[in-house]
């Protein structure tokens, strides 16, 4: 076991639920992965159209907002209702140094993937050992 405790690279901002323009929003489930070159956030935002996604990165805080268009009439009666529909909101404090210009995102099938490439300074570096001549 290593004695080094590594700080988490990405932390939830203290206020987990934040009001959006139109009231409270749902907190989407997220996977956060780290590879040598980037951090990747994978987020479930079913029912969201690509144009309704709003991703923002400022001062180390990544914020995702997604509007969900209503799919039923306001007075719809249900035989079974196990989930609600509304907008999504979640934000994270990113500790790692990020190459802000290199941030990219893709969206398909209700899943949003955000790629946060590490800044050069934060990448692990292999030092080649030259043979002394």
């Amino acid at each position, binding site marked *: 076991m290593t004695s080094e405790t590594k700080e*988490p*690279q*990405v932390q939830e901002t203290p206020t987990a639920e934040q009001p959006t323009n139109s009231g409270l929003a749902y907190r989407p*489930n*997220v*996977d*956060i*992965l*780290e*590879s*040598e070159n980037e*951090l*990747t956030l*994978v987020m*479930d*935002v*079913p*029912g*969201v*159209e690509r144009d309704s996604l709003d991703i923002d990165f400022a001062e180390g805080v990544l914020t995702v907002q997604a509007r969900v268009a209503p*799919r*039923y009439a306001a007075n*719809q*009666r*249900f*035989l*079974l*209702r*196990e*989930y609600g529909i509304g907008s999504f909101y979640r934000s994270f404090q990113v500790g790692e140094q990020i190459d802000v210009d290199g941030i990219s995102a893709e969206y398909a*099938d*209700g*899943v949003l993937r955000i790629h946060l490439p590490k800044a050069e300074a934060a990448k692990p570096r292999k030092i080649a050992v030259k043979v002394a001549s």
Partner: protein
Amino acid sequence: MVLRRLNTGSPVAQLRNEMDWLVQDFFGRGSRPVAPTAAGFPALNVWEDGDSLFAEAELPGVKSDDLDISVMVGDLTIQGRRSTMAGEGVAFHRQERGAGQFNRVVRLPFEVDAQRVEASLRDGVLLVKLPKAESAKPKKIAIRAAE
């Protein structure tokens, strides 16, 4: 997406690792135990109009090829799987999204026309439209004037 239409009475009991009942609150007809709150994955919203029953589920990241929807003897079954995206040299810092197999069976509150069931998957939302059988449609009863 596989859309199976099975009307034959096959032994379904073994398929059911869970079972919910839809309640139709109409003259007590078909009143069965109410669906438990933790009914399983995927969660369902179910509603009806005069012609059809609609069942909707949120299935982000599930490909239509990995979905199998079937209607048989009064049950709607939604089966499928979602895979993780683990890879070489990738560490998880947080893992909230579930992965693996799922299987949900819902008892339909009335007879549907299994031949005309349709399903669509859009932006991670599955919508199954189950047209009612003629016998299940609302009927207008003409009232004859008393002599």
